């Protein structure tokens, strides 16, 4: 798996959340709902925690940086797949964006404790597989896989 592609095969349950940009008051709601759903499905606590962290960081990134986007979660028999898509503005330098401590967050976001430059690195750390594709002016797509057994 090297390119971003949604794998629609064998999806037991699909969750979809639209995330508006700049809506700090609701940031974290989607990831909280995802966590609640996974707990109800009796998925292992450590897996729930990894998905919760990955989706939270994705959600915050959409709020801070994107022109709006969505998060989809595919629950499968052997793994959970997380798809994050937005409508821009796109990332100029992905290697730089993936560097711990690098952030383009505004001062307002930083004063709130966001913009530590840990979002994308945290997402990658929580995933067994991580793909990011971005095009300036078009948008960013991220796929993360969290496997039940590694």
């Amino acid at each position, binding site marked *: 798996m090297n390119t971003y592609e949604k794998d629609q095969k064998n999806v037991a349950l699909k969750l979809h959340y639209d995330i508006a940009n700049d809506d700090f008051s609701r940031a974290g709601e989607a990831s909280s709902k995802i*966590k609640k759903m996974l707990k109800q499905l009796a998925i292992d606590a450590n897996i729930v*925690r990894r998905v919760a*962290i990955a989706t939270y960081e994705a959600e*915050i990134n959409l709020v801070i940086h994107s022109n709006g986007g969505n998060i989809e979660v595919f629950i499968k028999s052997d793994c959970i797949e997380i798809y994050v898509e937005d409508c821009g503005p796109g990332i100029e330098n992905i290697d730089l964006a993936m560097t711990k401590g690098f952030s383009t967050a505004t001062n307002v976001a930083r004063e709130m*404790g966001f913009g*530590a430059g840990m979002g994308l690195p*945290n997402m990658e*750390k929580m995933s067994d597989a991580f793909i990011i594709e971005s095009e300036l002016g078009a948008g960013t797509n991220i796929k993360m896989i969290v496997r039940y057994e590694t």
Partner: protein
Amino acid sequence: MLVRDLIEKHGFIKISGSDQEREILNVYSCDLLSWVMAKGKHDTAWITVQTHSNILAVASLLDFSCIIIPEGISVEKETVNKADEQDVVLLTTPLEAYEIFKILYEEGVK
């Protein structure tokens, strides 16, 4: 130690949430939310000067025991209301982070 001990023995004020019987096994202090997301453990008492409502998502996603707002900082009503909705325990105290650490250490959080 339990959240109740901070309230009853050490005068911390509970401004939201209900679960005082929650055990505290870890303590962490940081105001960068992604940093806390990366490092925070379950059953943590988290000390932060951030008082906006996004701290609640962090605490609830990571199963923290409570959030401690130090140095007498006041908390927005919106945050308190949301914390009640999500049943997140928010505590306030005039103490500084180091004094809070000392209490938790002496109570057996090591």
